[in-house]
């Protein structure tokens, strides 16, 4: 198929960017979206032009590295997939595809379609961990009985790959879904209760410091999340925060 691509090009963080038009022929439905961009880049390199920079790593939908706002939606029009798993069969011959970087003040553009998502790392570092004695006498985690329902919910929350689609989709560029998933995966388990009060307070504080927006419960994040992280995690974070504020 033949596609008309409108791609955000930006030399570096301090330069202004703009949309550049490309026409790409010979795209097959079985290609992934990133393979389509690979072909575009091969063409650009063969013509002596600068290739389009974009983030990618595992190309299996588990690392959270790929991003891209495709035709106005993070990871494109398909549901529960990352850009690397989005196939070109979702598009039609002659389609125009607008490709932009994830937009948020807390996700500054580094180059072209690559954004700096280290704000997520700093939120994680603020409290997304448990203190475990690793000196050689660590207690086996399986020795602690855990309710099946709680274990399942914690696992569901832990499937967040931190790609940033929630921020990109949210009209407020809010990072509540990401932060709440990271709070929830510990809050639901006994090992995570030890530092529960400090965790939610510190992670929310860091989230606010990074300049993310406020949640207005539109639910866009949940719809666009490639891992199906649920809004119930945000409600849980709100409860945890309220409880932590009362406990001091």
């Amino acid at each position, binding site marked *: 198929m033949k596609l008309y691509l409108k791609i955000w090009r930006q030399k570096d963080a301090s330069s202004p960017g703009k949309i550049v038009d490309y026409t790409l022929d010979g795209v097959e439905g079985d290609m992934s979206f990133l393979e389509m961009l690979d072909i575009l880049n091969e063409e650009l390199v063969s013509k002596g032009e600068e290739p389009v920079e974009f983030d990618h790593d595992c190309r299996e939908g588990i690392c959270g590295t790929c991003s891209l706002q495709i035709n106005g939606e993070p990871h494109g029009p398909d549901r529960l997939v990352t850009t690397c798993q989005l196939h070109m069969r979702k598009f039609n011959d002659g389609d125009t595809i*607008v490709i932009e970087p994830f*937009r948020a*003040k807390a996700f500054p553009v580094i180059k072209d379609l690559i954004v700096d998502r280290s704000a997520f790392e700093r939120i994680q570092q603020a409290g997304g961990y448990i203190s475990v004695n690793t000196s050689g006498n660590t207690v086996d985690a399986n020795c602690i009985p855990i309710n099946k329902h709680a274990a399942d919910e914690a696992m569901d929350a832990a499937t967040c790959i931190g790609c940033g689609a929630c921020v990109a989709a949210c009209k*407020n560029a809010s990072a509540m879904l990401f932060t709440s998933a990271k709070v929830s995966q510990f809050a639901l388990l006994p090992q995570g209760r030890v530092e529960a009060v400090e965790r939610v307070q510190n992670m929310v504080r860091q989230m606010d410091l990074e300049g993310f*927006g*406020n949640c*207005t*419960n539109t639910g866009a994040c949940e719809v666009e999340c490639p891992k199906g992280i649920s809004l119930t995690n945000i409600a849980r974070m709100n409860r945890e925060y*309220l409880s932590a504020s009362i406990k001091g």
Partner: protein
Amino acid sequence: MSLIKSSLARKFVMALSGLFLVIFLLLHVTINLASVFSPDFFNEASHFMGYNPLVQFLMQPILIIGVIVHFVMGFVLEIQNKKARGIGYVKYKGSANAPWVSRNMIYSGLVILAFLALHFYDFWVHEMAYKYVEANPEDPTRYYTETVEKFAPFWRTILYVVSFVLLGLHLWHGFASSFQSMGINNKYTPNIKRCAKTFAVVVPLAFAFIAIYHHLNPITH
């Protein structure tokens, strides 16, 4: 100060003030419905609300503070949220993942705020002038006539009805959303949403019915 600093605290404040206003709406619509079905009860209830010191000097200021907190916090959130995006998208398909009402609460809210200005001018300013500026004697029979006469002009009735439609849209998202903001999302949530959405339809519809009814049934002297 912590209310301004923490994004989650701001959500609680929006939710709590919103829920408080929802309770007020329920009281308001109940008394107003009496103007259709029982003008005498409407006069009695309005007189009680207008002259009871507890209502006038405690509940009324609390209500006004509730309204101010809700819309000021709404503006603060909107400004912060706009800043959080930074450079906007060339193409942003908001309709693909969220309903229109949830994405445009600021606009439905602004219409309601503009309506409140008209509503305050129509009833509250008039009431304050009647009681405290002109110092008229108490007249427990005047409320029904004053209310019906207000809806005589077609333009006012239309403005009220349009505002009630926007109120309905605002409540459609806001009422159920306030529970999520306060951390309530469990097995009861589908029922909470159903109740909240029923409220969002029924209450504005009742307000609109009252306005249209009085417009179509003027007092003939």
